[in-house]
């Protein structure tokens, strides 16, 4: 399948901003069952400097410097991506989760693909005893990693309330877990925390969902904004498999990956510091159209 994606980020400031230094991670990745066909980012006001490099996780990161005074910052990103993934059944045969855990700890690489990078607490995902115990209920001894992860995903989908007003990006995971509400990145963080507590490698994925569902299917939660889900390492043979706890879906062809990291902090699409604004307002619009 081929998708056309338009992702427009607009910051409006109360007062003039004289200076902005931003990091953009807006280029959809190639790999993991998808291929980037074209991509462009237009920034207003025009930056005085733009440099791009691949970060540790392989994400194209653009550093942008804006020295023109402005009240609005508009970042317009357009991408075309083809996606071709095999959907993995929720009960697919998979190695016992304990074996996956031991394998991850014994990895001999620190690379971005190595599972060992995703079994420890990270900036936004602490390992908490309560969350680990919650996750443990989905992993009886000897059970397969895929069925366990699918069960945990389902429990988060049914046990947590989707509420865009309940949390902001700085809401700690502990609070999200105790109050059982949040949005897609909260659910992804909770699922990641639970899996890591058990020693299972779990990565954070930022990306998009197709806006208009296939005929006869419901519109997915989070389709009009950037989305987030979880990638779980399921042993050497299966590798990384996507699980979307917001929609209770094993990731297949409705998801387009932007970037993968340990948590939101590693992949945030637009990040930066500014000088001047008293108050800021953010608007994000995402449109994902199926081309063919």
């Amino acid at each position: 399948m081929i998708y056309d994606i338009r992702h427009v980020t607009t910051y409006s400031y109360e007062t003039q901003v004289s200076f902005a230094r931003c990091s953009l991670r807006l280029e959809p990745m190639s790999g993991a069952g998808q291929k980037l066909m074209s991509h462009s980012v237009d920034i207003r006001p025009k930056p005085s400097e733009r440099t791009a490099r691949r970060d540790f996780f392989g994400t194209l990161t653009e550093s942008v410097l804006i020295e023109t005074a402005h009240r609005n910052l508009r970042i317009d990103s357009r991408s075309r991506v083809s996606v071709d993934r095999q959907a993995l059944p929720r009960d697919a045969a998979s190695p016992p989760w304990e074996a996956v855990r031991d394998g991850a700890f014994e990895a001999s690489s620190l690379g971005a693909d190595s599972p060992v990078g995703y079994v420890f607490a990270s900036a936004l995902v602490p390992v908490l005893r309560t969350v680990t115990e919650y996750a443990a209920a989905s992993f009886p001894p000897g059970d397969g990693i895929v069925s366990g992860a699918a069960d945990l995903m389902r429990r988060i989908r049914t046990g947590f309330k989707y509420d865009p007003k309940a949390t902001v990006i700085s809401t700690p995971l502990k609070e999200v877990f105790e109050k059982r509400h949040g949005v897609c990145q909260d659910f992804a963080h909770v699922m990641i925390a639970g899996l890591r507590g058990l020693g299972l490698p779990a990565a954070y994925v930022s990306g998009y969902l197709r806006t208009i569902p296939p005929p006869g299917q419901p519109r997915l939660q989070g389709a009009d904004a950037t989305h987030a889900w979880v990638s779980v390492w399921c042993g050497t043979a299966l590798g990384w498999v996507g699980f979307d706890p917001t929609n209770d879906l094993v990731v297949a062809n409705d998801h387009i990956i932007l970037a993968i990291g340990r948590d939101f902090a590693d992949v945030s699409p637009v990040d930066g510091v500014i000088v001047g604004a008293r108050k800021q307002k953010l608007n994000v619009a995402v449109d994902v159209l199926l081309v063919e």
Partner: protein
Amino acid sequence: MSEPVGQKDSQGSNQESRARPGQRRMAQWMRDYARLPGIPDEYIAEGGAPRPVWTRFFDAFAALSPADIERRFASADRHLREAGVTYRAPGDTSDRIWPLSHLPLIIDAADWRQLAAGIAQRAQLLEMVLADLYGEGRLVATGAIPAAAIAGSGEYLRAISGIKPPGGRYLHLYAADIGRGPDGRWWVLGDRTQAPSGAGYALENRLVLSRAFSNLYKSMNVERVAPFFESFRDSLRASAERDEPRIGLLTPGSFNETYFEHATLARYLGFLLVEGDDLAVSGDRVHIRTVAGLKRLDVLLRRVDSNMLDPLELDASSYLGVPGLVEVLRKGGVVVANMPGSGVLEARGLLGFLPNLCRRLLSEDLMMPHIATWWCGQKSAREQVLSRLDEFAIEGAYGRGVPGFPGNGPVLPGQLSADERGRLKDAIASRGVDYVGQELVRLSTTPVWENGRLAPRPFVLRVFAAATPNGWTVLPGGFCRIAERADARAVSMGDGAVSADVWVVSDKAVATSTLLPAVDTVRIRRIAGVLPSRAADNLFWLGRYLERAEATMRLIRALCTPLRDPARGNSTGAAPTLHSAERIQRMLVAWGATSQTARTNPAKVALEALQNEEKFGSALSLVRSAQRTATGLRERLSPDAWQVITEMADRLAIEVHDDDGVVSAAELTLQELASFAGLAQENMNRAAGWRFLDMGRRAERAVNTTRFARQFAYDEAGDEDLDVLLTLVDCQITYRSRYLVQPLLAPVRDLAVLDPYNPRSVAFQVAGLNEHIAALPSLKEHGLIERPQRLAVAIEAMLTTAEAASLDVKTLFALEQDLLSLADAIGLHYFPHGPNASRPEKLTGLA
């Protein structure tokens, strides 16, 4: 300080009569010294005989009379207090005085040479490991280091991976915590590779102790510490691209627990003490915001943890760093010491792999043993720990604290409840990577002085090594922390521990040592040529706070004095009319020094204005504000100046009860303020820093004097009001010598406002401000005159041409407003809160 040993024994002209009581004392100390059973000791060897270096020390020490010893101890304590050697324990809201053990830890030179060689080897090894971890990655790929032992560390910074460290190395300063094990060898307890603290305290301890016992120190042939710091500084300079590099010491700020040390080191090494806000990335470089604009910074010695260094690429919530710093590192534009990410080697889980790594990378055996450590990420080690759990102390593998258990220290399984012990076992079984088991070890004790006796205490010694172009050099000495408790592993300042100086002592006289000065002297150097905007800001406000405190004191004194001295004044012959007192009171209310608005007992108003801390404008509050501001300037203030401010605050806080108390407190404080002004005038370099301090003082005095003139030389003012004004601006004598008549409106106005020769007049202050502004670097844009100068020149012109007769209240009010605008303009122009230099904030929201 002179130190005639044994001077107290007045008959003691012959050696014997002095030695005998000394020998008796020493014998007594040894008899009383109760070594802890089964634990080795520094002073007394295994067989019960004292070690020679300690015997030499105590020989000389015992020759001092008990009274002399106590006096010297007291002098050491006084120095610590006066120099303001402080630290903060976690949770403290104010500084604590640094507790110093009065006895040094003494180490034999031969023993030390071995130890130093081991430390230098270890530093070299760790540098090579870091270069591989963030570079090629062969050690992990070949299994010499398990990936999980690294990946779990919060200090393994993926953003740093692949960056070639500018300056050519990761580690510039390395420290190790060590202790002496039961086998008599020194053992490493932990490595400090992030931003080792303690070297500055070691320096301060040395200064204090070598001063208090200068002859004893001299006679002991103690290795000097100054050359180490020189060589560290020179090496950092050499690591920069430019010949005359600008070096900053990056501190988290004055709320940090070791801020005093940052200030000490910056001053001693001649580096600029900077905070993240002082720095800005522009182009491919890091710059300091100074009063002369952005200036390139070549080297950053950091005392801020790696993760906090750059909100763009590291911890996004940090306000302590510099946005874009990692990108500058990537481009090779600044040397950061130690390189961000170096802290990964502090992980305890790595200890066990070092012997093999040493053979592999250096082709030699690791010289220093370390505390036996089993990383539970490996199956065999995990099984060993689980099978003999109670024989270990359990620690976190990566950082402070044991995951899942409260506190920062180790967990001793033998002391846990059955439940907790079970939980620990489960945790180790399922996530063993997070834990290490460490051998429970009894480290040696060292003597401390306790109520005239010696007592053994466990200690941890931190030793330091600096990278130089010719290899690693080790500080002969170090930072020794002595515990109150028997378990030395829990030593940290905060739970009753003290620190001690460390003497590396040669057993025979070192020929060269007599050529060295008796004490380790501080080499005076000028602070580097640029003045960071933040420091300028603080100096300006320090000047303003102190001047405002002075004006408040004068008001308080004027309010009380006449009541004690009814014979004052020519016309009324008694207390000032209620009218004058009310005007003074009104001013104190306007300044927030008192809230007594009703007509009331002046003594009550004066008391509140003097020392009510809840009133932000009270004299005590103002002096405290000055003290807080001065805290951020520690590296720029002389110890004397700091001491004056501290004493002033301490004394003002002592409660007084009556008029007499108020007046004498006000007078003492005015004297102290004058002595601070004198110190600044006489002792401060006439560099930009002094100018800002003086500008603050002059700006504040100009505003206050104008206000006094408006209040007491108003158009219908009587001679009593004018008399008060003359007192407030300290011009009684000048006036009387000049006019020989009772106070008259025009002459008083002229003297207080216009007279350019009167150092207390408004005109004099404005002339001073003008001179300073003209001498400061210009940031000229478009070649136009800059705003502070424009305002100051205009005010000076007005004051030069005005006539006293025309200085009505309206004119005075306008002048006051102009002066306030001038003060603001100086702030906007030079300080970091200006529109072009404000603190960057994060983009927020889920983009």
